[in-house]
């Protein structure tokens, strides 16, 4: 009722001649009214001049989704621009809930989102199991690999599925793959293969590597070495970078780094590209334009692989970026995008099956019929052997994408998207057989 009246006022005001400012005013009024207005699914569209029929609450089916966040202590990143926002991840899920409900209102389906957030693994497990027992079938998670496996074990006998939106760990897709886990985040192998394919396409084959001491850095290096070998690139030398975290916060510091990086890279053999493996954002940003040789930097910094770039306008993404920016008040990050894809997967399954039953939707998402449109130019599907979402991956600089992998010329029997990551004939995962 309130909504119709608002629109009526808006239209009258528009007819009297104002235009642009009305849009802002409308948004403001909507925001204010949303607090007092409980959303219900609508069956038919509105007219301006008369009230639309009220929604029938009883035949609207509910599809609840829970976002799970493990609060982790992280070293402060080198760049101020890399501090993760508080709502990283869940903002993407929230946008997808809105998108799902815009279809849902025509199909009498109502999607809702709740959050469980804690630094303690046990608290997360307890919360998730309680929700699953109460009937929630879908959990979008931003947790460490160990926590993900613990959650998967805890949910083993329940009709529920976990969407991994944040962990790139390869073992989750391989030896530790689980039937109740799907991955919308890219794996390390997909990211490093995207990079290696582009370097191969460029014929920049001579590589040197600088890696950091963190466990995640080592995982990245492991994957990178596999990709370099796979795509015929030569690793000529490797060096470890040591650092004291926190020392870059001083007011000065560039004078020393300016000398330190050239000295560090002086002895390296003649190479085409220097790769950095710095998942913790502690030194990677130091290398571009400071190395001894005038050669590009790539890897976790410099030219990097990412599932989403906030400046992408490819494949109709402009509207998507705008909707997210308006809703979250900031640019979309890969974690937001992965969470969005997870919630949209559930929405897509609900749309095509007309059901809200978790078992039915989970089954549909495992079937050959499932496909997701996600502003990547082609339909995205989950790999049947380990439920990893296949997707094109950007190679980018912070401002703009440079290219999208898979690169032209890399062929595949079934889909070129499977040239990124560990392919079916090579996989250790048997959970989905």
């Amino acid at each position, binding site marked *: 009722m309130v909504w119709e009246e608002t*629109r009526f006022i808006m*239209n009258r005001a*528009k*007819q009297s001649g104002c*235009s642009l400012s009305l*849009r802002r005013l409308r948004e403001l009024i909507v925001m204010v009214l949303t607090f007092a207005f409980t959303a219900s699914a609508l069956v*038919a*569209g*509105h*007219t*301006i001049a008369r009230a*639309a029929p009220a929604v029938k609450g009883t035949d609207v089916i509910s599809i609840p989704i829970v976002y799970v966040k493990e609060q982790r202590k992280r070293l402060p990143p080198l760049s101020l621009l890399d501090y993760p926002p508080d709502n990283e991840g869940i903002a993407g899920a929230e946008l997808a809930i809105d*998108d799902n409900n*815009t*279809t849902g209102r*025509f*199909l009498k389906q109502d999607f809702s989102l709740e959050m469980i957030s804690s630094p303690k693994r046990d608290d997360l497990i307890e919360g998730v199991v309680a929700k699953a027992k109460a009937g929630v079938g879908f959990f979008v998670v931003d947790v460490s690999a160990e926590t993900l496996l613990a959650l998967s074990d805890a949910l083993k006998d329940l009709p529920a599925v976990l969407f991994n939106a944040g962990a790139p760990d390869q073992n989750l897709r391989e030896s530790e793959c689980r039937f109740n886990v799907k991955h919308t985040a890219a794996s390390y192998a997909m990211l490093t293969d995207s990079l290696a394919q582009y370097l191969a396409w460029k014929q920049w084959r001579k590589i040197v590597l600088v890696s950091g001491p963190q466990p995640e850095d080592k995982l990245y290096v492991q994957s990178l070495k596999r990709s370099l070998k796979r795509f015929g690139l030569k690793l000529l030398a490797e060096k470890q970078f040591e650092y004291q975290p926190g020392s870059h916060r001083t007011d000065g510091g560039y004078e020393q780094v300016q000398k330190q990086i050239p000295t560090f890279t002086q002895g390296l053999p003649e190479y085409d590209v220097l790769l950095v493996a710095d998942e913790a954002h502690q030194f990677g940003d130091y290398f571009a334009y400071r190395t001894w040789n005038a050669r590009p930097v790539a890897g976790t910094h410099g030219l990097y692989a990412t599932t989403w770039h906030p400046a992408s306008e490819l494949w*109709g993404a402009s*509207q*998507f970026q*705008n*909707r997210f920016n308006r809703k979250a008040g900031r640019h979309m990050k890969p974690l937001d995008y992965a969470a969005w894809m997870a919630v949209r997967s559930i929405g897509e399954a609900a*749309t*095509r099956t007309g059901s809200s039953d978790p078992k039915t939707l989970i089954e549909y998402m495992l079937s050959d019929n499932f*496909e*997701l*449109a996600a502003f990547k130019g*082609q*339909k995205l599907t989950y790999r049947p052997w380990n439920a990893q979402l296949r997707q094109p991956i950007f190679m980018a600089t912070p401002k703009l994408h440079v290219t999208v992998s898979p690169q032209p010329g890399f062929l595949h029997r079934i*889909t*070129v998207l499977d040239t990124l990551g560990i392919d079916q004939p090579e996989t250790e995962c048997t959970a989905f057989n």
Partner: protein
Amino acid sequence: MKAVCQNALTCLFVSYALITATLPAHAFKAFVSNEKDNTISVIDTKSMKVIHTIKVGQRPRGIMLAKDDTWLLICTSDDNRIEVYDAKTYEFIKNLPSGPDPELFALHPSGNPLYIANEDDNIVTVVNIDTGRIIAEVPVGVEPEGMGVSPDGRYVVNTSETTNMAHFIDTKTNETVANILVDNRPRVAQFTSDGKQLWVSAEIGGTVTIIDADKKVAIHKISFAIPGINADAIQPVGIRINKAGTKAFVALGPANRIAVIDAKTFKVEKYILVGQRVWNLAFTPDEKLILTTNGTSNDVTVVDVKKQRAFKSITVGRYPWGIVIANH
């Protein structure tokens, strides 16, 4: 030697005469929106040349003719308005309000009003093209794009790219009366000339759904398969059906081809290779030619409808998007 040359020359001359003899004698004007150049290329279909370039607003996409082909209307998406030009003199006439980010629009067959899809706001804006007033706003699905209007003017159909639905809007009440699920990322909605069917292309789904316009249910789905072309590259966008309702032509995006379909049996008869990333297409008013807009090769391909053969490419501006052909 001389005799051979003479014969060859005669052959050439005769062939040339034959080819030109089969070319349509009529000159029509084709208007092509160049999304990146912010211009409209005007092509003379007799000389097959670009005869004029109109400078317009930012990001021109949807394009149509009104008032007996004398007005050219363009959705300048980044300027958030419709621009109106004289289709004969190319002079600017006026702007029309459109709601934010207009991409495609459809004109009621009576000549008014104009229904515009606002991609950013999930609404269809209804505008009176004479007075320039916004009459109504109809909420639809996420990212509305395709707009089709039934020949009797009773329904306007809007497709939503993320909701994956075709919404039937009753033009008397401006209310949505039916919402039909189609495949992923529907783009274009096109009625047959008898108003009995609505054809909707699904770009990511890779199919065209045929909807019974009376019963408002999907009755058929056309899939495409091109030997040697990856199925993911077959992305149907533009649809045009001839007036007799016997043949339909669908632009298939990065498959670089248009499909020729028997509109009665829904069978795909042929694929015609055109330029790169073909999104939209238009008949000349005599339906002898089809011109296609090839976004990433920056050109327009001319196809002989009867022979089902492409025979010319015309370079236009960057990222040609929409095309409409005037009866003069």
